[in-house]
């Protein structure tokens, strides 16, 4: 099962590369006479990638289940925690332009700290509030970074918060 997965991954890469090659050929339509077109270099990279994937797949197929050189077993993994971690990171990025930097960051910090193993609610809450405030002062007041303020009425909330904190 594990061996099948290790062979399938490079084969998937090979297939993906070959599927993209026609797109690079289409790019060369704008090329000037006697010159390399804009599709040449990405095509070279894709063909190199495909060839490397093929070699990797053959190597994995030849390798027995317990053969020497097999990758060392990785540390145990919690798929639930991984899924939650990825969801939190992507959700944080998605939420930034919608709810604004302060609210999204405070919520993310609290949730991610719990996921990462923090247990004391007071510690989590303090880190979320103090951390977000410190980041706001540093990056909005000092560096003038135009962080996302949120959409619709939430933008007004962010601006109110900025005024309350004296950074806007």
């Amino acid at each position, binding site marked *: 099962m594990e061996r099948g997965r290790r062979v399938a991954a490079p084969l998937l890469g090979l297939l993906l590369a070959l599927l993209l090659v026609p797109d690079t050929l289409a*790019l060369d339509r704008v090329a000037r006479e006697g010159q390399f077109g804009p599709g040449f270099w*990405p095509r070279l990279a894709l063909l190199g990638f495909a060839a490397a994937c093929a070699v990797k797949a053959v190597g994995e197929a030849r390798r027995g289940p317990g053969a020497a050189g097999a990758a060392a077993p990785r540390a145990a993994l919690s798929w639930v925690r991984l899924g939650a971690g990825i969801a939190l990171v992507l959700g944080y990025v998605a939420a930034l332009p919608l709810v604004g930097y302060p609210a999204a960051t405070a919520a993310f910090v609290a949730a991610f700290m719990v996921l990462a193993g923090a247990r004391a609610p007071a510690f989590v809450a303090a880190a979320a509030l103090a951390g977000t405030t410190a980041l706001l002062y540093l990056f909005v007041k000092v560096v003038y970074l135009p962080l996302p303020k949120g959409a619709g009425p939430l933008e007004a909330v962010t601006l109110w918060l900025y005024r309350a904190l004296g950074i806007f």
Partner: protein
Amino acid sequence: MGELLGHLAAGFVSAVAPLNFAMIVLGLGIGIVAGALPGITMLNSIVLVLPFTYFMGIVPAILLMIGIYCGGIFGGSITAILFNIPGDPMNVPTAWEGYRLSKSGRTRYALGLAIMASAIGGVVSALFLALFAPPFARFALGFSSVEFFSVVVFGLASVSVLGQSSMAAALVSLFAGVFLGTVGTEQQYGVERLTFGLPVLRTGVDFVTVLIGLFAIGEVLDQVAGRDPGRRAAPPDARALPRIGWADLWPLRWSLCRGTGVGVAVGGLAGAGATVSSFVAYGLERQMSATPEQFGQGHAGGLVAAESANNGSTGGAMVHLLTLGIPGSAATAVMMGAFLIHGIQPGPLMFTRQTHEVYTIIAGMILANVLMVGLGFAAALTFAQLMRVPAPLLNTFIVAFCVLGAFALRNDMADVWLTALFGVLGFYMRRWDLPIPPLVMGIILGPMAEQFFLTSMVSHANDYTVFLRRPVSAVVLGLAAVIVAWPLVARAVTARGPEAGR
């Protein structure tokens, strides 16, 4: 020689004048902090201080920038060693070895090595600048895109020995990086390449977003997804200043010499810069090492070679600026702007018309690298205290800083999305035993290789043999071929050994 020493002595006297000295120290401080923070690069800092130099004389202005330049190149190694987060691309090889050393409880040793290697590389480089600037610049001036392409290929070839699992895995990663480097709007024809209509990809994949995502967020996800996410990333070996003595450095003297040599030589090629120097020195060190199998596991020689090379490149990059008026790197291009603002045209005439200023700048560069030892140790201690912070808090704020760093690049949420997605990719690459460094190298060097290759082809009527007909290019490509072939030959010889013995 006597005249040169006289000029240098006068330069030192001028460099230690209160204002000049203060600018060097201030620049070093800004550079080390900026270099250490992912997303805030040394180059950004030099650009940001440029407006402040309007109100200074040319010497303090350039000394401020040189301080940032030298400090910034070193600064990225601090977070690379402590948190596996290279502050700049040039510190990636440092992260490979330094972070492993740190994880094995040798944080102080790794930081000490990085500081000393950086300082020695920088001082030698500045001395090289003083002694050999005019003749070396004349030699490198003859280089065209053909030679530059060969040097970049050499850097890319060294990736074949950087893969920690297998050459095939390293090449999968490398070509993926080269491909990602082609995504976005192509410069020559202005067409969108492989963006699939996504506005996020229109401006291309910035390597800083890739760096932040793959290294920092990928590492955090790997820790959080583990069975014990609250564990510390490394033992808290940060109670005192980093320690390093001659007894530690002496066994690494040849690594230091090779790294510094590569740094000075590659840095002298306009456009090559600290990143290429660092990768080439690391690759060469692995080839020359008696223990190549220990690379990627915390090899002190690899760390020393990479750090001495990236600081060693600073003098080489300044050669072009001071003697020819051609900036040898992006950082020196900004410095050239400062010269022009003050009505001074850098070039050969500077050595005769502004001799005092030129040698004050060179002396300031030597001084900056010496001062970096003290300031670097203090900065490392400050950053090392972060290792005492509880892992959940540290991991969470690493992600928060990564998001800010990605956004600060261009104030564009597209960069933040790319960073997050590369973070997820970084996690899976770790789990699938695909080495991350070749991908990063492909993204950084791939576009440079494309540009130099296409320029060469236009200049030489698509004649591929030009790369072999020009001596410097042929030698460099030959070295690249040896680097690729060497592990294969060594493996074949090793495999044949037992059979022959039967």
